[in-house]
Structures are given as structure tokens and as C-alpha cells.
């Protein structure tokens, strides 16, 4: 492992105008702007791979990706993107006094000083979708934001309130109980079963179409149905995935929705553990999915089985998919390990790279700025000391918006 210090050519710009996070300068360079970085292999995320390449950066954006360079690192990939990171999904991130709270945003519950961001950065993840806790049927608006940068959520936000989060399955009904006897609190309410949860979804959609709700709720649900806001629905097991797809297809076919232009929801099914059991349904409906982390026994929440070849099966069926590590930064379960696990199930490397960079970025509409190393995009880079996604290599440095935010080389 080359111990000689990387000669990152430090930009001449004064760091002043871009108020740089006062990250403690661990290696003297962390926190400063970087003007160029090179590696033996540059995986641009667009399918193009450079043997020996250099990425030039200025003003926090990528200037150019070209050959040559002094190979300071083994590999460079775009900063990884995790849509299921569940960052900031604390107890107070969802308003449980009501099962459908579409208008509320979880930005108030995000803490820029939290420890979770550093852990995500150290695992190479530079952009995440921060969603509220899955306790409500419709939890509320979520943020696409960077995991490093200024100590402020607004400064790190890539797309504000751009994804409406909800959940199918058992999770939303967990605290509720049937309302007979004297209800002590507001948890004596519907839904208490999977059917009830599905009913809440459909009644929310239909009320919006029939004009029976108003204010922020109506506004947000309208945006979701029009596709101006991505609709992320958590569904682990086969029946929940099917329920979600049928609910969406029902909207697209009904005249009530089509007439008002409310038939164009952009849906992503999150934590779709058993998506591999429904390849045709998903391919037909064109709904992309985000897979939950692989587990040691293959069993995930509610007994859903997630085998190692699930990703490869979806690829074969032409279903758009992304991987997720549920925000873990640990060396045994972070996003790079999930990509490695998918590859051990047969998924080729370039597909695995897409599933953790460009695809997730595209699913939440952030591909204009992140997800690949192309001119004009944000300079978010993960720098590896070996072949990416192999357990024998890891992310040793991360650049976000052109600033070296972490340098783990000893």
C-alpha cells in the first residue's frame, strides 16, 4: 500500500468563498479543495472505464475525466448513492397522530452533526435519500442530500421534499389496535391489518382525485399522482409488492385519475426483498425497486427470503433495481459489501456499479448532479485502495463537492 503521501494538487483557490466545513484537519488536507485526482482505474459510472485516468475538478464540479495522471489510488468510482439509507429515521421523524401525513417533511428531524453521516462517508456513500420512520402508511416528504459538506441540512440538500415516503405490509399497523372499548389514545384506529394499510393508500389516492381532502395533504398527494414527486413505498414480501403494483396500475387505468392527469405517479418500491419472485409483474409495470441488505441466513423482515442471486434475476428480467445497506457504514454490511454480495450471486461488476451509483440517482431525479463522473456533475468521488466491491479493498478517501471530506489512508 503506497505509503507515500498522495500528491493531490491542491487548488490555488482560497477556500474562503466556499464556506468549507470546519472538519478537523486529520491529515492536513481534509477539508481543503482538490483540483485533480488520479487512479489506475477510473469507473465513470457511464459504462466507460479508463485504465489510468485523472478527474479534474473546479468549483465543486467535474471539469473533465481523461487518461493519464499519476495513479495515486487504485480505483475511482462516483460517490455511492443509497436510497434506503434510513438516515435520520429517528423516533420523532414521523407524525404518528395520523396515519396519512403526506404534507409533513422530515427535514426538521435531520441532525447535520449526527454520527451516521461520518459513517456513511467512510463507506463511500456521498448521497442518500433520508426518509421518515415507516410507522405511518404515508410518512411524509423525504430529502435527497449529501452525507458531507457544510454543517447544515439546507446546504447539503440536493433535492428538497422530492420523495413522498410510505409503507405497505405490517409495519404501519403495528401500534394500532381495534377501537372497541374506551380508546385511551389515537392508536385505537385503522389500519390494524395489511388490508387496512392498502385501504388507507387507496382512500388517500381516491380522496385526492375526488377532491375530498385539502391543504398540504391534497397538494402533496396531487404532486405524487402527477409524478412531480417520486413515490417511495416500502414493501418487503411478495404480497406487499403485488399490492403496491396493483394499486399503482389501478390509478393508471381509472378514468377518474386519467381525466385529471393524476395517472402518472413515479413509484419506487423500497426494501423489495422478494422482488425476485415477481420479475414479470415488475417488468410489465416498469416500477423500479430498491433491494434491502443481504442477510446471513437469507431471511429478512417478515420472513421475506432474499437470496444472493436476486439482483441478477432482476437484471435478467429487465427490472430496474438499486442496492441499499440501510445506512450501515460497518465494514461487514456497508453498501460496497452489498454490491459484493450481489456480485457473488452472479451480478456482473458494471451492473453492480450502476446499482449503487447512476440508477439510484436517476430513480430520485438527482442524476443531473450525482451518480456518475461526467463533466458538469458534482465532484463526488469514492477513492479505493483496490478493486471496488471486493472484500480485499475499501474506500480510503472521499471527495464531496470537490472537497476532500475524509482521508483514511494511514
Amino acid at each position, binding site marked *: 500500500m503506497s505509503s507515500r503521501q498522495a500528491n493531490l494538487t491542491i487548488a490555488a483557490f482560497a477556500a474562503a468563498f466556499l464556506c468549507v466545513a470546519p472538519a478537523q484537519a486529520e491529515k492536513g488536507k481534509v477539508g481543503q479543495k482538490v483540483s485533480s485526482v488520479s487512479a489506475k482505474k477510473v469507473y465513470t459510472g457511464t459504462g466507460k472505464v479508463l485504465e489510468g485516468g485523472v478527474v479534474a475538478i473546479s468549483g465543486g464540479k467535474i471539469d473533465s475525466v481523461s487518461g493519464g495522471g499519476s495513479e495515486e489510488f487504485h480505483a475511482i468510482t462516483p460517490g455511492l448513492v443509497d436510497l434506503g439509507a434510513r438516515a435520520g429515521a429517528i*423516533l*420523532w*421523524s*414521523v*407524525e*404518528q*397522530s395520523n396515519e396519512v*401525513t403526506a404534507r*409533513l*417533511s*422530515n*427535514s*426538521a*428531524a*435531520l*441532525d*447535520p*452533526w449526527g454520527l451516521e453521516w461520518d459513517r456513511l462517508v467512510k463507506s463511500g456513500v456521498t448521497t442518500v435519500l433520508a426518509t*421518515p420512520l415507516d410507522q405511518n402508511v404515508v410518512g*411524509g416528504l423525504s430529502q435527497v442530500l449529501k452525507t458531507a459538506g457544510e454543517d*447544515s*441540512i439546507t446546504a447539503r440538500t440536493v433535492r428538497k421534499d422530492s420523495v413522498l415516503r410510505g409503507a405497505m405490509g405490517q409495519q404501519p399497523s403495528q401500534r394500532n389496535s381495534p377501537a372497541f372499548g374506551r380508546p385511551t*389514545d*389515537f392508536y385505537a384506529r385503522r389500519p390494524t391489518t395489511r388490508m387496512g394499510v392498502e385501504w388507507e393508500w387507496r382512500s388517500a389516492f381516491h380522496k385526492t382525485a375526488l377532491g375530498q381532502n385539502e391543504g398540504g395533504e391534497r397538494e402533496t398527494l396531487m404532486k405524487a399522482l402527477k409524478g412531480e414527486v417520486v413515490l417511495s413505498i416500502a414493501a418487503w414480501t411478495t404480497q406487499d409488492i403485488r399490492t403496491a403494483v396493483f394499486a399503482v396500475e389501478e390509478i393508471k387505468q381509472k378514468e377518474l385519475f386519467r381525466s385529471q392527469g393524476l395517472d402518472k405517479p413515479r413509484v419506487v418500491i423500497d426494501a423489495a426483498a422478494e422482488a425476485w419472485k415477481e420479475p414479470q409483474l415488475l417488468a410489465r409495470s416498469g416500477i423500479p425497486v430498491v433491494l434491502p441488505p443481504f442477510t446471513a441466513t437469507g431471511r429478512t423482515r417478515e420472513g421475506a427470503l432474499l437470496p444472493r442471486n436476486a439482483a441478477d434475476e432482476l437484471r435478467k428480467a429487465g427490472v430496474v433495481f438499486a442496492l441499499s445497506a440501510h445506512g450501515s457504514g460497518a465494514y461487514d454490511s456497508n453498501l460496497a459489501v452489498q454490491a459484493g454480495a450481489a456480485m457473488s450471486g452472479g451480478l456482473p461488476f458494471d451492473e453492480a456499479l450502476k446499482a449503487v451509483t447512476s440508477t439510484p440517482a436517476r430513480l430520485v431525479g438527482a442524476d443531473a448532479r450525482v451518480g456518475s463522473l461526467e463533466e458538469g456533475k458534482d465532484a463526488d468521488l469514492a477513492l479505493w485502495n483496490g478493486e471496488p466491491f471486493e472484500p480485499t479493498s475499501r474506500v480510503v478517501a472521499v471527495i464531496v463537492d470537490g472537497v476532500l471530506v475524509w482521508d483514511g489512508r494511514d
Partner: protein
Amino acid sequence: MMLATFLVLALGGGDVALRADKVWIDGSTSIDKGMVLVRDGRIVEVGAKLDLDEGVRVVECQGHLTAGLVALGAKVGVADAALDPTRPAMPEARVAHALCRDDAGFAALRAQGVTSVVITPEAAKLVPGATAVAKTSGALVSERAHLSVVFGASALSLNREPTSYARQGEMLSELFARPEGALLAAKRGQLPILFEVQSKPELRRAIEFARERKLTGALSGAPLAGELAKEIAESKLAVVVDAGGAGEPRREALAMVELAKAGVPFGFGLDGPRNPWQNLRLVAALAVRHGMPRQAAHDGLTRTAASIAGLSERAGVVKAGFDADLVLWSGDPLELSSAPKAVWIEGALVHGAVQ
């Protein structure tokens, strides 16, 4: 009680002049061998050499004479009546109505040199009500000094609305969108707001809320407020530093010093988890030990605290026209080894004695 058989002097009667080895006007200015002329509970004149007409008794005091200390948040005199859990917001509630004037806590505070105190409601609801300001002699100064508004997680619970920060923010916005009564006074800036916060993100949201609605007041309850000193300074809000007492972690002590460096007006409060009355000066001493300039600590106990409490015209400074709330210390007030030998509230000796 170490009662020496000395003349217990009430200063309320005719004019009296106190001469002390050192008179601290405020944290930064002091007069050696200074004199303070008191009449009818008020300070008339302060100076090195006063030309007194005869008949005015001069009392020689050994030690340092300062303005009475002001504590910014103490649950004294209200025991457990400071919380009404029935409704999320009760802006018209006043903790003054639950005040028990002869609570033993007042005597204990007087013994520590504290002459005025802000009494706050329990921060377990969105708007728990209004704070009260009282002299530690038991006299109520103001029934509605601040409106307590809670941005912290202490107002959230899983069994009552709101159960999330988002809904909390929305409900507070709704309250201030159509304000009346106390909320209207607060919106118009007539009633300062006491923002109860804990973590740094909550503190930042309170600053944002105040900036959007041009509200004034103070941020209370965030031990690491100092780490956002620049933002707080720009927001023109003050900070109430909660006296954690001995064993305050180093990071929180250094945060206090950051407040002084950034010029944020701050005062010390006794609302911390272990809030013994002795902690007010103990935390000031801790701050000095970690690098806070002595005058900033002194002002935090007197002048700035008085302005935060809304007493900027009558307490916190030894100045003509102000109440004669005075304390005679056996030595430098910031040295814990000095003790309050005598405490006057509005000219009346309420603790200790003077030769």
C-alpha cells in the same frame, strides 16, 4: 447562622451611604473605596468621593460591593405546579399564579447573593405559559416576563400530538399565524420569548423561527449553544446557560467560553438537572477557569442576566436610579472562597449583617 451581634441595619429609612473596599458597577468597571448613596430603596449616587450632606450615616463595609445576582431559570416557589399536561399550548397560563412567596428556596437564594430570579414553567409542552420575575425577597416583579415556547424534544411524546419535529414546527407556526393575547404580544415584540431547546439542530430551528417572525428573547437549555455562537450572535437572541455545576464536561465548559468570545449576551440559569442554588457562581467560576474573561462572567451573573430577565432598567448594575439590590462579599465575587456577608433587596437587609 453565624450571627455576629452587629447592628442590623435597614437602609430603607433615611439616606445611608455604603463605603466598601471595592464597588463593582458591573463586570468591567469598579471603584476602589467607592461609595453608594441609597434612599427609599433606590440608588441615588455612586462615586469615589460623594459630598454627603450631614445626617447621612456612612456604613463602612469590608469587602466587595456588587449588584445583586440574577438567576435566569429556577423552579423556586412553584414546586411541581409548573406543568399542566391537559393541552399542548397554554399561552395564557402564568407560572406566577402558582408562586408560593415564602418558599424556603428564596432564603437559600438570598444566602447565595441572588436578588432576582426568573421562574420558568416546565418545558414539557409546546407553549407551557409565561415566566415570572421575582425578587428573592418574595416580591413579584412581573407576572408575565417571557413567553416560554418549547422547540425541544421534551415537548414531543408518542401518545399525544405532536409526535414529530415536523408537526411541532407546523403547530407553532399555526399558533403564531393567528396570534392573540400573549402570542400577539410576543409577535409584536412586546413580550420576549424563552425558546426551550436541547440539541443544536433544535437550537438552529428556533433561531430560524425567530428570524422569520422577527421575534426577540433568549435560547435556554442547550449545553452546546456556544458551538453555534456565530449564528446566535447574528440572530440577536440571548442565551441562558444552564448551571450543570461541578463535573460539567469540558466540551460544554468551552462552549460557554465561545459565547463570551462571540459577544453573545448570556446569563446563568439554575434549570439544569442538579440545580442546587450554589451552582450559579460555581459555573461562573468554571467558565473563568476554562478561559472566559472575568468581566464577562461577572456580567453574566448581573448586568446581562438582568437585561435578559427584563430588568435592564432597575437591576444588575450599581447605577443611580436602579433598585438598591446590593451584595457585600467578603472578597472578589468570582472567587468561590468569598461569601455574601450582607444582601440588600431594595434597600432592605435581607441576609447577613453589617458592622
